[in-house]
C-alpha cells in the first residue's frame, strides 16, 4: 500500500517537473519517466498485460515526441495581467472541481474490493468458453472482440490521418 502511494506521488512530481521545466526536451524526458513509473504501478496492481502494452507505447511516444521537439528554450512564460487573471480563474475552477470530485469519489467501492458482477462470469467461464488461459486476452479477443475491431479501425484512421498530414507532395 505504501509502495503504491509513493509510486503515485512520484508520478505527480514527475508531471509537475514536466509541465514547469523551461526546456522542452527535459519535459519530454520527464513525461516518459512518468509513463514508465505507470508501468511499474501496473505491475504492482497485478496487471502484467497492461504494463507490457504501456511500456511499448511509452517508448514509441518518446520517439514521436522527440521527433517533434525543437532544441530550444520555451520562452513563453511571460507574465502579464492577463496571464495572472487566467491563472487565478483556472486555479479557482480546479479547486472547485477537486472538491466536488472528492465528494463523488467517496461513493465508489472501497479500494481493494471491486464490484465484479460482469467479470465473475468471465473468470468462471473464460477458460472453458474461449480456451485462453489469460482472461485478459479472452476478454480482449473474444468477449469484447467488437471493441478490439473498433480500436483497430481508430488506429488505422489515425495513422492514415498522420500520414496524410505529413506527406511531402502537396497539391500544386
Amino acid at each position, binding site marked *: 500500500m505504501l509502495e503504491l502511494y509513493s509510486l503515485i506521488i512520484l508520478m505527480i512530481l514527475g508531471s509537475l517537473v514536466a509541465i514547469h521545466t523551461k526546456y522542452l526536451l527535459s519535459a519530454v524526458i520527464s513525461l516518459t519517466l512518468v509513463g514508465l513509473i505507470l508501468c511499474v504501478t*501496473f505491475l504492482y496492481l497485478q496487471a502484467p498485460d497492461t504494463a507490457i502494452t504501456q511500456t511499448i507505447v511509452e517508448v514509441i511516444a518518446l520517439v514521436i515526441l522527440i521527433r517533434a521537439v525543437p532544441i530550444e528554450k520555451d520562452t513563453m512564460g511571460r507574465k502579464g495581467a492577463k496571464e495572472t487573471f487566467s491563472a487565478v480563474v483556472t*486555479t479557482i475552477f480546479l479547486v472547485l472541481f477537486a472538491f466536488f470530485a472528492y465528494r463523488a469519489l467517496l461513493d465508489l467501492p472501497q479500494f481493494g474490493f471491486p464490484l465484479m458482477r460482469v467479470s465473475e462470469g468471465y473468470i468462471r467461464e473464460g477458460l472453458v468458453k474461449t480456451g485462453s488461459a489469460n482472461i485478459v486476452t479472452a476478454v480482449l479477443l473474444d468477449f469484447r472482440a467488437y471493441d478490439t475491431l473498433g480500436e483497430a479501425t481508430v488506429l488505422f484512421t489515425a495513422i492514415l490521418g498522420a500520414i496524410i498530414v505529413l506527406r511531402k507532395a502537396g497539391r500544386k
Partner: protein
Amino acid sequence: MIFFLSFILFLIGLYCVLIKKNLLKIVMGIVIMEYSVSLFLILLGYKKGGFPPIVTPGVEGTNFVDPLPQALVITAIVISIASLALIISLCMRIYQKYKTFDITKIRKLKG
C-alpha cells in the same frame, strides 16, 4: 484516499492544458490526463490479495483481480498512442508554417 491521488494527476494535466501557451506543453497535458485515467481504471479493478487473471494450476480460480478494466485500458492505451501521433504530426505542420509553437501567435489563416 488513493483514487483522489490519481485525480490530482488528472488536475495537473488539466491545468497544463488550460494555462500553457506552448502547443507541445498542451499535448503533454493531454498525455498526463490519459495516464491518470488509465491508472484510475486499473485502481478500480484491483482486488486485495488478488493474482493476475491468468489461469494456472497452482492458483485457485476465484481470487483474481478484475480483468475487464485491464482489457479495456489496453484498448485505450493503443488508441492514445495513435491520437498522439496524429496530434504531433499536426503540431509539426504548424511549426513548419509559423516557425513557432506559441498559440497566441498562430492566428493567421491564410494558406
